[in-house]
C-alpha cells in the first residue's frame, strides 16, 4: 500500500501541469456545489423572511378571535406547546396621523403602531438598523421606523412624531431608522410594548403574540397543537398559506442543486478523460510493473489512489474556492440588495449536509471517474513492456454504447415530460448521460460535416486537425461532452430565467390592465381591515373620464385544513379592468360562470396543491358552515401569484362569508380622458377616504420590475460560474492531446510543418471540438430548460415558456470564444516543441 501511495504521489508531482488541470476540474465542481449550497439557503432565508413573507422569523401569529385585547398570559400557554421556541407579545393598532392643511391629497394618513417586547422580539423579527439606535427598555417616548417610511413622513433621527393618544396627543422622538423595505399598507412604527400599551390605554393587555418554531418542529402539527391549546377565543394564523411559496423556492433550490451536479458531472468527464490518457501514456511503465511482479489489483489500486489524492486535494481547494465564491457573491450582491430591495442577505450558510455532500461528491466523482481507466490499466499485459506501442488502442464499444445512449435519451423523455420535479431532475441527468454515450458514435460524422467550413479558413491544417480528432473519437467525444454539459446547464438556466421574467411581465401586464389602483394604506390581516363601503366605488365611478370600475373583496377560509385566500370579484366588471392568465382548458367564460352559483376560479398553486380539475368540487369552511363550491377554471394573476387563492363572486362572499367591504379598487379611464384631470379628480375622491391610497399602475409596475431585475443578478453570476468548467474541460483535453502527440508533432515539424501551421492545427482542433460541443449543448440545454419550466408550472409556478434567443446567441458566442481561448496555451506549447527532443520522446 505504501508503495502504491508513493508511486501515485510521485506520478502526480512528476506530471505537475497535468495533475493541476485534472485537479482543477474537481476544484470547480466542488466549488459550485459547495458555494451554491452555501448561498441558496441564505438567499431562501432572506426571501422568505425579509421580502416575500414580510413576517420576520414569525411562524405563527395569535390574535383575538373577537378583535379584542387579551391578557399576556397567552404567551406562557403558547410556550408550553412543544415545537414553539419563542413567543413575543405585542400590540398592533392603526393610528391616524394629524393632517396638516397643506398636505398633498395622496399623503400618508395613518401608520400602524407596533408595540414590541424588547426581551423577546429578537426571536421573531430582525431590526436591521440603518442609522441611530434601536429602542431600549427605558424608552417611553422613542420610536423607530423604516428609513423609507421616515423619508416619506419627512422625518429623521431626532425628529418628533405626534400620535393621537387615549388622552390628547403623545410625542415620540425618532431614535433609529431601519433598513428594511416598507410594504405599501404596512407603514409601521415601532414603540416599546409598555409605551404602546400606554398610548392605546390597554393596561397590561396585548393584541397579538408572534411565535417562532424550533428548527425541527412539524409546522402543521405545531399550528394545530397551538390552536387546541388556546381554544376558540384565539385566532391562530400560520405561514401555511406561504407554504406554496416555499414550494416554489424549493423547486428553484432543486434546480440549482441540479446545476451543481452538472458541474460535477462535467468534472467527472474531465477526470475520466485525463486518466484514460494517463493510462495510455504509462502503458510501458505498467507493463514493466506487471513484468517484475505487480498484481493487477496493485496497478488498479495505484490509479485509484492517484485519483483519491486528487479528489481529496481538489475537494479541499474546491471547498475553499466555494467559500470564496459565496462570500464574494454576497459581498457583491449585498449593496445591490440593500439599495434596491432594502434587505440584508447576511452571509453564506454552510450546513453540515453541504459539507458532507461536497466532500462525498467531490472525492466520489473523482474516484468513480478513475475506475474505468484504472481497470484498463490493470488489464495492460506485461508484454507491453517488451513491445512498446505508441498510442493506446482502446477497446471501442462505441456502437453498443450509442444504442444504450439512445435508449437512455428515450427513457429520459418520459421523466422530463411527467411534470414531477424529481422525475424531471432524474430525467435531466439520464438525458445528459444518454447524450454523452451517443456522442462518440456521432462525433466522426459530425466532425466531417463541421470541418468543411473550417477547412476553408484553415486549409491544410484543418484537414489534419479533423483526422486527429477522428483518430481518437473517444477522447473527442469526452471533450465534446464536457463542453456540452457546461453549455447545456447555461442554456437551461437562461431559458428558466427568461421564462420567469416573461411570466412575471405577462402577469403584470395582464393582471394590472387597470390604469388606477386604490389600495388601503394599512392591510393587517385578521384585524378587521380598513375597507370601504359601496360609496367609494360609486364616487370613483362618477369621476368623469373613468370607464370601468371593479373591486376586490378578500377573506380567509379553510379548505382541507389549510388556509386559502378567497377573493370576491364582480363577474360583470372584473374583466374590464383586470385579467386572468388562464391555464389550458380555462377561459374568460369561467368568470361569467362565477355569477351563476357557488363556483370558484382557483389559481395554479391552489389547483396544484389539491390536484384539482375543472368541474370538481371544492369544500370550504365558511363562518356559516361548510359549503361546496365547484371549480370553474384555473387562472393566475400577478398579485396572488405566490399565494394559494380562490376567486368567487362578491355575491357568494357576502352570502357565505359575510364580507361586503371592498379592499381594493381598480379603475380604467376612457381613451379620450385627460390623465392629469382624471388623476386630480380621483385624488379628490380619495381625500374623503383617508384609509385608501391612489396608485397609477404604470408607476407600480415599474417598481415591481425594478425589484425583480435586481434578483436576477444572482442568475448572471451563476451562469458565469457554470461556464468556467467547460472552458477548463477544453483546455484540459487540448493540453493532453498535445502532450500525447508530442512525438507526432515533432515529426510534423521535422517534415516541414512551420510553427504557425502547428499552432493553427491545434487551434482548428479546438474550434471543431467547441463548435460541436456548443451545438450539442445548445440543443440539450434548450430541451432541459423547457422541461424545467414545465416542472415549475407543475408545482404551481405557472409561466409561459419563453425561447431564450439572446441567451442562445450568447452561449454560442461564448462556446466558440472558449474554443479559441482554450487553444492558446496548448497551441503555443505545441509550436515551441524542440523537434529533436520531441522525436526522441518515447
Amino acid at each position, binding site marked *: 500500500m505504501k*508503495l502504491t501511495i*508513493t*508511486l501515485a504521489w510521485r506520478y502526480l508531482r512528476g506530471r505537475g501541469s497535468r495533475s493541476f488541470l485534472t485537479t482543477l476540474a474537481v476544484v470547480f465542481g466542488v466549488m459550485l456545489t459547495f458555494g451554491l449550497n452555501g448561498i441558496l439557503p441564505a438567499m431562501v432565508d432572506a426571501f422568505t423572511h425579509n421580502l416575500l413573507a414580510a413576517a420576520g422569523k414569525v411562524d405563527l401569529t395569535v390574535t383575538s378571535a373577537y378583535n379584542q385585547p387579551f391578557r399576556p398570559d397567552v404567551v406562557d400557554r403558547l410556550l408550553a406547546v412543544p415545537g414553539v421556541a419563542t413567543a413575543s407579545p405585542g400590540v398592533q393598532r392603526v393610528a391616524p396621523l394629524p393632517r396638516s392643511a397643506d398636505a398633498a391629497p395622496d399623503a400618508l394618513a395613518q401608520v400602524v403602531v407596533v408595540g414590541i417586547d424588547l426581551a423577546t422580539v429578537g426571536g421573531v423579527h430582525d431590526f436591521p438598523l440603518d442609522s441611530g439606535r434601536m429602542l431600549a427598555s427605558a424608552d417611553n417616548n422613542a420610536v423607530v421606523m423604516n428609513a423609507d417610511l421616515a423619508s416619506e413622513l419627512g422625518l429623521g433621527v431626532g425628529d418628533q412624531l405626534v400620535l393621537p393618544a387615549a388622552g390628547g396627543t403623545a410625542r415620540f422622538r425618532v431614535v433609529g431608522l431601519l433598513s428594511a423595505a416598507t410594504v405599501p399598507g404596512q407603514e409601521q412604527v415601532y414603540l416599546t410594548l409598555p409605551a404602546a400599551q400606554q398610548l392605546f390605554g390597554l393596561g397590561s393587555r396585548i393584541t397579538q403574540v408572534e411565535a417562532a418554531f424550533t428548527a425541527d418542529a412539524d409546522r402543521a402539527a405545531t399550528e394545530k397543537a397551538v390552536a387546541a391549546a388556546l381554544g376558540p377565543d384565539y385566532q391562530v394564523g400560520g405561514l401555511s398559506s406561504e407554504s406554496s411559496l416555499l414550494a416554489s423556492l424549493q423547486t428553484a433550490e432543486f434546480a440549482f442543486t441540479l446545476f451543481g451536479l452538472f458541474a460535477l458531472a462535467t468534472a467527472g468527464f474531465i477526470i475520466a478523460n485525463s486518466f484514460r490518457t494517463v493510462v495510455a501514456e504509462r502503458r510501458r*511503465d505498467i507493463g514493466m510493473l506487471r513484468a*517484475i511482479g505487480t498484481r*493487477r489489483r496493485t496497478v488498479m489500486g495505484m490509479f485509484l489512489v492517484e485519483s483519491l489524492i486528487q479528489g481529496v486535494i481538489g475537494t479541499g481547494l474546491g471547498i475553499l474556492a466555494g467559500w470564496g465564491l459565496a462570500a464574494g457573491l454576497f459581498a457583491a450582491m449585498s449593496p445591490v440588495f440593500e439599495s434596491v430591495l432594502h434587505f440584508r442577505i447576511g452571509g453564506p450558510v454552510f450546513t453540515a449536509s453541504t459539507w458532507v455532500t461536497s466532500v462525498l461528491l467531490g472525492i466520489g466523482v473523482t474516484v468513480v471517474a478513475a475506475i474505468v481507466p484504472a481497470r484498463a490499466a490493470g488489464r495492460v499485459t506485461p508484454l507491453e513492456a*517488451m513491445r512498446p506501442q505508441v498510442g493506446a488502442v482502446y477497446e471501442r464499444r462505441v456502437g453498443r454504447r450509442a444504442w444504450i445512449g439512445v435508449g437512455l435519451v428515450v427513457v429520459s423523455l418520459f421523466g422530463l415530460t411527467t411534470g414531477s420535479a424529481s422525475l424531471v431532475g432524474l430525467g435531466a441527468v439520464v438525458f445528459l448521460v444518454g447524450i454523452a454515450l451517443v456522442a462518440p458514435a456521432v462525433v466522426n460524422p459530425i466532425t466531417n460535416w463541421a470541418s468543411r467550413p473550417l477547412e476553408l479558413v484553415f486549409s491544410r491544417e484543418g484537414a489534419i486537425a479533423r483526422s486527429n480528432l477522428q483518430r481518437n473519437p473517444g477522447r473527442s467525444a469526452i471533450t465534446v461532452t464536457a463542453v456540452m454539459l457546461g453549455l447545456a446547464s447555461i442554456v437551461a438556466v437562461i431559458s428558466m430565467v427568461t421564462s420567469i421574467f416573461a411570466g412575471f411581465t405577462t402577469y403584470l401586464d395582464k393582471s394590472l390592465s387597470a390604469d388606477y389602483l386604490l389600495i388601503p394604506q394599512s392591510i393587517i390581516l385578521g384585524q378587521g381591515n380598513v375597507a370601504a363601503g359601496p360609496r367609494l366605488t360609486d364616487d370613483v365611478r362618477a369621476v368623469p373620464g373613468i370607464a370601468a370600475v371593479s373591486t376586490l373583496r378578500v377573506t380567509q377560509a379553510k379548505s382541507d385544513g389549510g388556509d386559502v385566500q378567497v377573493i370576491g370579484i364582480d363577474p360583470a366588471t372584473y374583466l374590464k379592468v383586470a385579467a386572468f392568465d388562464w391555464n389550458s382548458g380555462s377561459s374568460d367564460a369561467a368568470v361569467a360562470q362565477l355569477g351563476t352559483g357557488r363556483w370558484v376560479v382557483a389559481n395554479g398553486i391552489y389547483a396544484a396543491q389539491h390536484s384539482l380539475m375543472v368541474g370538481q368540487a371544492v369544500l370550504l369552511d365558511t363562518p356559516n358552515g361548510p359549503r361546496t363550491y365547484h371549480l370553474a377554471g384555473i387562472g393566475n394573476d400577478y398579485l396572488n401569484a405566490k399565494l394559494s387563492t380562490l376567486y368567487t363572486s362578491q355575491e357568494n362572499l357576502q352570502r357565505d362569508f359575510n364580507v361586503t367591504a371592498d379592499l381594493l379598487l381598480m379603475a380604467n379611464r376612457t381613451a379620450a380622458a385627460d390623465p392629469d384631470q382624471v388623476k386630480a379628480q380621483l385624488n379628490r375622491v380619495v381625500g374623503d377616504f383617508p384609509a385608501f391610497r391612489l396608485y397609477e399602475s404604470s408607476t407600480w409596475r415599474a417598481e415591481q420590475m425594478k425589484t425583480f431585475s435586481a434578483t436576477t443578478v444572482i442568475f448572471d453570476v451563476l451562469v458565469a460560474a457554470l461556464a468556467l468548467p467547460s472552458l477548463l474541460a477544453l483546455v484540459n483535453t487540448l493540453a493532453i492531446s498535445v502532450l500525447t502527440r508530442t512525438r507526432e508533432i515533432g515529426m510534423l515539424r521535422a517534415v516541414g510543418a512551420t510553427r504557425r501551421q502547428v499552432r493553427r492545427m491545434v487551434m482548428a482542433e479546438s474550434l471543431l471540438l467547441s463548435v460541436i460541443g456548443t451545438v450539442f449543448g445548445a440543443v440539450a440545454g434548450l430541451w432541459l430548460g423547457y422541461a424545467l419550466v414545465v416542472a415549475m408550472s407543475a408545482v404551481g409556478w405557472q409561466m409561459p415558456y419563453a425561447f431564450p434567443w439572446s441567451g442562445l446567441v450568447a452561449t454560442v458566442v461564448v462556446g466558440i470564444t472558449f474554443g479559441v481561448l482554450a487553444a492558446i496555451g496548448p497551441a503555443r506549447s505545441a509550436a515551441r516543441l524542440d523537434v529533436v527532443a520531441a522525436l526522441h520522446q518515447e
Partner: protein
Amino acid sequence: MSVPLPAEKPPIVEVAGLTKVYGTGAAEVRALDGVDLVVPEGQFITVMGPSGCGKSTLLNLLGGLDTPTAGTISIDGTPLGEMPDDRLTELRRRRIGFVFQFFNLIPVLNAVENASLPLRLDGDADADGRATTWLERIGLGDRLRNRPDQLSGGQQQRVAIARALSTEPALVLADEPTGNLDSKSAGEIGGLLRQVSADWGRSVLMVTHDPRIASFAERLVLMRDGRVVDDLVLDGSHEAPRRALEKAGLL
C-alpha cells in the same frame, strides 16, 4: 551439437517441446516449434537469430508473460503450467528478474526506489537497504538519489539490472539489453551480465542481435523459424559468436 550439463549444477530452466502458435488457418504463425532447452544454475546463455526467429517469444514464455500453445516450462523446479495470474505474478516477482531494451524505469522514482520496486511489492522491510547494496555493487553508489532523466543510458540499464537482482532471483531474463546503448556502454553492460552469472551465481538468459555482446556469454543458442539450430559453448573471444552465425548461415 548440444552441450552436456555440468553434473553438479541443478537446472533452473527446463523447457520441453515448447510451441507457440499465433493466429489460425492461413494467418497461422508458428513462433516456436518444439523447443527443448535446459539452463543450469549460474549459466550465462545468449539466444541469437534473425528477426522473427522466435527468440523474444521464448523469453516471454520463460518469463511467464505469455502462455505456450504446447510444451512445458519449469522455472527453478516450479512448472508454470496452468498457474493463475496472481501466482505467476508472484513467481516473476521472486524468482525472475527482467532487463528490458528500453530500461523501463519509472520516471518519477529515483535509482534506489526503482531498484527496490520488486522488494517493495513483496513488502520487504529493508527494500531500500538491499537495493542500495546492489546499486553499490554494480558501481552506482554515487547516483542513488538520481532520477532516470539524470542518468546516462548505461547508468539507467545498470539500475534496471540492480532492480532485476534485488530479489535474489534464480533467473535473469534480458531482452536486447544493449539495443539502446552506445557501444562503450553496451560492452560494460555485457561485462556486468557476465559478472551476474559468474560472481553472483544467477542464470542469465539474454536475447541480442549484437555478436560482440553475445561473446560475454558462456553458451550460445542459435534459433531460426522457431527452432533451435545450434547450441554451443563460447570461449569468450569476440569472434566466436560471429563465426557460429556464419556457420549456421544466419549472417
